[in-house]
């Protein structure tokens, strides 16, 4: 490892720590009970709902697509699938806003600015499926076909085949993708700001609003929420990797030839 890359890594590592230190510094003396207002409670609930729904749907659809394309070996479909990745989130939000703010065939069920946030979820799924696909398709590329052949020889049912011959290898990329998506979607601004509703607002939108409008006092609420959320995600990441460590190590060793 060269010296410059070591320095660069140190700088990159120092940034999140600086961020967290800043948040802690800003929230010293903050009256935490202020967060117990209805806007924040409702925001937490709707954020969890939107984040988990979009993330899980993206993971399932992305994996399914990667698997199908791997099985069928259709490379043109694989390259076609990537293109939503190159559309910025704000452009995607506008696209879906234009599609669903009136007159679309399923208008009523799917509608921009309604409280079930279906169009927000749809936008995220459309944007994140290619990301999951990319994360997973590599794993499929390296998959040892022997496991699948063995599972077939043993005459396991298709679902069982998937569970023993594919799933163990997918844990790592899916876990990575899960946390990337959760961290991103749960505190993003553009998409829910354009497609969401006035009440309840997603965490990112409400935090930005409290940060920039009205009294400066409200800014501390946003800092506090950002701090809690960072710690929450950090804990989640550590816990989930610790819990799956044993299984992942066994698989990584097993894959060595």
């Amino acid at each position: 490892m060269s010296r410059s890359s070591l320095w660069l890594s140190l700088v990159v590592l120092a940034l999140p720590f600086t961020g967290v230190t800043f948040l802690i510094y800003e929230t010293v003396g903050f009256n935490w009970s202020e967060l117990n207002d209805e806007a924040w409670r409702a925001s937490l609930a709707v954020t969890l709902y939107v984040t988990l729904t979009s993330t899980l749907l993206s993971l399932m659809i992305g994996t399914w697509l990667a698997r199908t394309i791997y099985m069928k070996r259709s490379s043109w479909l694989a390259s076609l699938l990537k293109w939503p990745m190159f559309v910025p989130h704000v452009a995607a939000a506008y696209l879906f806003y234009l599609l669903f703010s009136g007159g679309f065939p399923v208008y009523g069920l799917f509608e921009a600015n309604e409280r079930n946030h279906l169009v927000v979820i749809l936008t995220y799924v459309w944007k994140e499926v290619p990301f999951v696909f990319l994360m997973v398709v590599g794993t499929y590329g390296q998959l040892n076909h022997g496991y699948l052949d063995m599972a077939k020889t043993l005459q396991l049912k298709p679902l069982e085949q998937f569970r023993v011959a594919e799933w163990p290898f997918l844990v790592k990329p899916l876990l990575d993708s899960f946390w990337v998506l959760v961290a991103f979607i749960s505190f993003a601004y553009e998409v829910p700001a354009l497609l969401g509703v006035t009440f309840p607002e997603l965490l990112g939108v409400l935090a930005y609003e409290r940060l920039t409008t009205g009294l400066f006092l409200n800014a501390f609420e946003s800092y506090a929420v950002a701090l809690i959320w960072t710690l929450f995600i950090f804990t989640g990441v550590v816990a989930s990797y610790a819990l799956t460590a044993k299984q992942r190590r066994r698989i990584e060793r097993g894959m060595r030839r």
Partner: protein
Amino acid sequence: MHRLKQLGLLVSLVFLAACGTTRAEIAPTFEEAAEEAKQSTVNFYMWGGDDGINRYIDEYVAPRLKETYDLDLNRVPMDTAEFVRQLSLDKRANREEGTIDLMWINGDNFRNAAEAELLQGDLLDKIPNAALLNEEAQATDAGTPTNGLEVAWGNVQFVLHYDADKVNNPPTTFDELHRWTEENPGRFTYPEVTDFTGNAFVRHLLYAEYADTVRDGEIPDAFWEELSTWSPNLWKQGTTYPKSLAQLDQLYASGEVWMTMGFNERRAEAERNAGVFPDGTRALTLEHSIASTHFLAVPFNAKNPNGAIVVINELLSPEAQLAKQDATYWGDGTSLDLTKLDATDRDAFLKLDEGVTYPDPQRLAERSIPDYGPAVIDLIREEWDRVAK
């Protein structure tokens, strides 16, 4: 490694330079300020959401400044609350040389900036054209005394606009407007109260019910219950509201709602002429209308305060104010007292009062009411959520 050391040295030098600067001072007279400001750049931070306003600054004001004072004006579009916030961070970090030289501000942003001591004082004595100002407009900013921390730039009133091709019998009072929404469900809405205009609309309804009795006090529960009864007949049954005035204007332009609103009685003219707003757009003056003044201020750590003084003086000149009020660019009301101008200038202003979408100026002036203070604005922001639910 050698490179790295160089970089480290550079970074620490920049850091030291940032710490070591002192505050720039305003010259004692305007002539000296103008001399100092020659060949400098003034960074003008202002809300950039309106094309007409941006064009007025870029196409009209900036070339004039270049020609008369040899000074470059750099317009930086940013939300007001955001740059006030940036300034307050500067203050806390003792940053004596900032990036903002001049800013456009009013209302609770001004109140916040004044409380946090982010602005330079005694501006009026240094600006010759300040003598022409309308003293009443200059005195207070949405209930907060200005104390020479800001200079009035424009003075407008709140009006609604409606599409006369769709609305046959426009309401004349806020009560009638409520009834009109019941008869035309889904055709009216107002921006969220975090938005400047949305909050002002709710203040008008508050004034219609309680007039001056709630100033700086509490808003009775009955008001919120009454306001909730509007919801079922608003756009999307009141389950959501436009996030900003720009979004409401879009809904109005596309014909989804039939009314829009805003400060500045002349704001619809340019939009209608450009074909954005419907041809039938007309002004709607209800029983009262809040008058609002917007201001210019110089931050405590402006790098080029002399340049800022020169720009303010230019923006207050009768010619620049006249061009601002003309519908070509902006259509913003003047902050000058017309009686203090000479006859030719005064006549030029009076001639501008003709536009298809303008309200009757006499009637609008009669119905003008002063704004509630920032306390009421905050209260509405805090308590309106129960209506939005």
